[in-house]
């Protein structure tokens, strides 16, 4: 269940954070919000809920006047030139658990938003008073950056303020300056279906420790500037085709490949062509085509078995004498 506005306000009071609140009709845009609270001495914020191609989510909270260039931000995060998009509506309710038009840094109080990265405009720090939605768009709250920080720290978040308008070069010798703000525990599927589910399914699921280590290693995270066309669906070859040192599965894989090749070699044409010699011909071809492939599979199997042994060996308890 997501936090409610009242729970949030209560929390703020508990933490003795100075703030004031103002109710108004539901607003969906900064312009609409400005009509009600624009002249009350605070500075409005605009809040974006973004998603990258690896289903990681970001809340960008900025002063309403700050120019936020998604292309630049994407590069600074190391996601390439077009790695960031607006997150879909469903993600808003599933992950941030706030209604449309209500993106706010306070949404990270929700468990479901645990892995959402929060990027805050450093411009907030110098403002006496900043305006945010407290998890609902029929109210605005006014507080300063210190108050926001106190709240964020209370939910285990380290506030990151950045210069959102900066546009530093990103390239071979200049790593993306915001790369550290990319969530490291991406909500990878805790099960690994062969078919890729739609992007919806990846959201909101808590990232359990049940992440197959093979899944983690198979997702090679890319550095700056590699605007790779990462498929929208999660990498479907995440499950290794050779599971850990399982002799049965290993042999099945070898037999599958050999028989597939065998079947492809035997056709009406090849029978006509080689007649009685077909056996020799096919045998030679199989050896030629499969030799390297099978050796590679065998090496992977060997390395996996060795690793299991090594791991066990490092935790071995010597015999008590």
């Amino acid at each position: 269940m997501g936090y409610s506005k009242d729970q949030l306000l209560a929390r703020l009071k508990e933490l003795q954070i100075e703030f004031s609140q103002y109710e108004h009709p539901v607003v969906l845009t900064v312009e609409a919000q400005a009509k009600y609270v624009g002249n009350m001495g605070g500075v409005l914020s605009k809040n974006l809920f973004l998603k990258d191609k690896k289903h990681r989510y970001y809340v960008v909270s900025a002063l309403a006047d700050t120019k936020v260039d998604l292309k630049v931000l994407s590069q600074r995060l190391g996601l390439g030139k077009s790695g960031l998009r607006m997150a879909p509506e469903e993600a808003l309710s599933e992950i941030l658990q706030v209604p449309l038009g209500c993106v706010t840094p306070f949404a990270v109080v929700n468990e479901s938003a645990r892995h959402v990265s929060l990027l805050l405009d450093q411009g907030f720090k110098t403002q006496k008073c900043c305006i945010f939605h407290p998890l609902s768009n029929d109210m605005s709250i006014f507080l300063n950056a210190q108050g926001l920080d106190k709240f964020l720290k209370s939910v285990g978040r380290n506030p990151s303020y950045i210069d959102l308008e900066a546009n530093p070069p990103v390239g071979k010798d200049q790593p993306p300056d915001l790369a550290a703000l990319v969530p490291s525990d991406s909500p990878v599927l805790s099960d690994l279906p062969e078919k890729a589910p739609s992007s919806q399914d990846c959201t909101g699921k808590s990232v359990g420790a049940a992440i197959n280590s093979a899944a983690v290693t198979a997702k090679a995270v890319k550095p700056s500037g590699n605007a790779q066309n990462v498929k929208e669906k999660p990498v479907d070859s995440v499950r290794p085709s050779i599971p850990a040192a399982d002799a049965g599965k290993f042999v099945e894989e070898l037999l599958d490949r050999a028989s597939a090749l065998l079947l492809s070699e035997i056709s009406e044409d090849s029978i006509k062509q080689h007649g009685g010699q077909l056996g020799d011909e096919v045998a030679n071809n199989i050896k030629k085509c499969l030799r390297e492939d099978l050796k590679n599979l065998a090496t992977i199997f060997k390395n996996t078995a060795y690793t299991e042994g090594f791991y066990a060996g490092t935790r071995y308890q010597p015999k008590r004498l």
Partner: protein
Amino acid sequence: MEKIEDKNQQPEEEQVVNPWEVSAKDGGKIDYDKLIDKFGCQRLDQPFVDRVQRLTSRPPHVFLRRGVFFAHRDFNDILDAYERGEKFYLYTGRGPSSEALHLGHLIPFMFTKYLQDAFKVPLVIQLTDDEKCMWKNLSVEESQRLARENAKDIIACGFDISKTFIFSDFDYVGGAFYKNMVKVAKCVTYNKVVGIFGFTGEDHIGKVSFPPVQAVPSFPSSFPHLFSGKDYLRCLIPCAIDQDPYFRMTRDVAPRIGYHKPALIESLFFPALQGENGKMSASDPNSAIYVTDSAKDIKYKVNKHAFTGGQESIEKHRQYGANLEVDIPIKYLSFFLEDDAELEHIKKEYGAGRMLTGEVKKRLTEVLTELVERHRRARAAVTDEMVDAFMAVRPLPNMFD
């Protein structure tokens, strides 16, 4: 020993080849003959390739057949010793500056794996995380992290864990390794490193004292847990030719401290998709094929970004044929298409104009997709525990089997 002139004084027309910069004269192609002359290494010609085939009783690797590994130092000594029954070990490495590897990065590893299998010898792989920390201004943690990530892609090339030791400088430097570093350092004056690597008064002392780190894995005594008692074991270093300066320095020093000179076997540079004159750069993903590219990505990159030698129109193409000298798909195929006969056929037909660029690109896309797919599957099987095992300081009792 050949000195390279101080970088600052190099006249504009010269091509520049050193560990940190590779650029051709006037934005043209690298002149490898000149390079061999200037560096003072030897061409690796056909008799060598035949000899390797005889000694290993298996077809020589495609990179040898196609002249990708084209230069060497003392490779004949290694082969002579091997014929006499004396083994050697392999040493190669990577500077982990970025997370995603492209095909050019894999080339020395693919070749080294072949050497390990063909000659049945052990291998040490150095990850120079300290170097990248210093030259690329990465944090220590980041360069260590990249080293581990790169190790996974390296392992995916198919090295045998019972014959391979991977190490990162931050983890391993010390003990016997460091003792050798000091021995090497004592033999190289400041003026000499400036001459070889072009350091200036503005460069920090980390850079100046780095070269011994890359030199000493050439000496078996740097790895007491592997080669203790085998001080005369020879070392063969497969690398790209821009690494030559480190090893020229090492070969100069080796006899002075009582070690064999390491032998080298060196490769060409892998061209960028946009052509020989283009630079492969991490900030331009379309300049190279990455091991994480999907089949769709590969098709797109080959079709849209590969520089071809085809003519502008089909009629012209049929009349004049393609310019094979500059055609990137042909170049890439010569690296990665195993079948000699098929490659010859394609070159002949394409050069005569009977085959169109589209067909060549299609074949290339197939070859690359298969390669990348195989790599990805192997990579998926590499766990953190496997990396730990490869990087553990442990004996390798079966390393010559």
